[in-house]
């Protein structure tokens, strides 16, 4: 549900675009193209194709500005344009990813290794064991100063996620799309979108945890 503030900001932006304000256009091209390049990869398989699809989408937006009725946000509208162009392009490239499904069953690992929880005979079944309990990380991985290696770990982990999980995590957490935007762009149900997000995020948390644990071992703590 877009806030009133977001709606009036959107209306102001639309007005600037309609009156030919090229700074406003350059601004949204800069702001939204990274997210669109990621989204385009849902339909095409190479960087070059994705660049072309995104350019085409912007051109279609420029031409369609007068027809846009403002029933959705501008960002949702450009995503819809991108989806149409991407789909027809993807058909030609014979790339078919079943975005509405959850992927292979073996992508459905539990969020945390079951061995880290107490067994059924314990006084506290299914609660953390003393050894399995998460330990606070030595730093937050987004801290600028120390983050280079942590971030690489995260980028590698993201690249290795199953395709559907990677797409949903990238659009939501890297590019900041809303769940509604992701669901409508990928034609996913809200429930499936959350399952993919959950599996992807859980796996990445686990990778960072291993990364910090390995580091603690080296430091002898």
């Amino acid at each position, binding site marked *: 549900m877009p806030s009133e503030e977001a709606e009036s900001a959107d209306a102001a932006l639309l007005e600037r675009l309609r009156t030919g304000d090229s700074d406003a256009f350059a601004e949204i091209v800069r702001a939204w*193209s990274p997210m669109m390049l990621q989204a385009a990869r849902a339909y095409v398989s190479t960087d070059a194709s994705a660049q072309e699809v995104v350019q085409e989408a912007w*051109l279609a937006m420029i031409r369609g500005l007068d027809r846009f009725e403002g029933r959705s946000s501008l960002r949702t509208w450009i995503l819809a344009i991108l989806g149409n162009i991407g789909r027809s392009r993807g058909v030609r490239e014979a790339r078919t990813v079943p975005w509405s499904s959850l992927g292979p069953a073996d992508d459905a690992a539990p969020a945390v290794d*079951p061995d880290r929880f107490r067994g059924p005979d314990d006084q*506290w079944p299914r609660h953390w064991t003393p050894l399995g309990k998460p330990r*606070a990380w030595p730093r937050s991985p987004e801290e600028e100063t120390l983050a280079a290696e942590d*971030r690489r770990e*995260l980028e590698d982990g993201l690249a290795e996620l199953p395709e559907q999980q990677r797409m949903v995590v990238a659009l939501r957490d890297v590019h900041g799309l809303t*769940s509604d935007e992701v669901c409508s762009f990928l034609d996913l149900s809200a429930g499936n979108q959350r399952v993919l997000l*959950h599996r992807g*995020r859980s796996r990445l948390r686990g990778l960072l945890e291993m990364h910090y644990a390995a580091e603690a071992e080296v430091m002898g703590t």
Partner: protein
Amino acid sequence: MKDEQRTPGLTIDCQEIVELVTDYLEGVLDTDMAAEVEAHLQLCDGCDIYIEQMRATIRSLGTVPVETLSETAQSELSRAFRDLRGPAAAP
């Protein structure tokens, strides 16, 4: 034991929490369940740390470098915009 089981926060176990965390962070749990998760987090250090790690993971995903359109493509688009919508193109 029976009483302990009814204590708010303990009708739910840690192994469940780690699978509910996304629904919790997305705000889609019903009010009772969300309250139960919160009560559990008050009691359980491990889950509290776990959920903070999920938040940290999400925040740090927001700092991953991203690709963008080539400079050439961006200036081509700006030119197209000026040609089609700029003052000169007005009827």
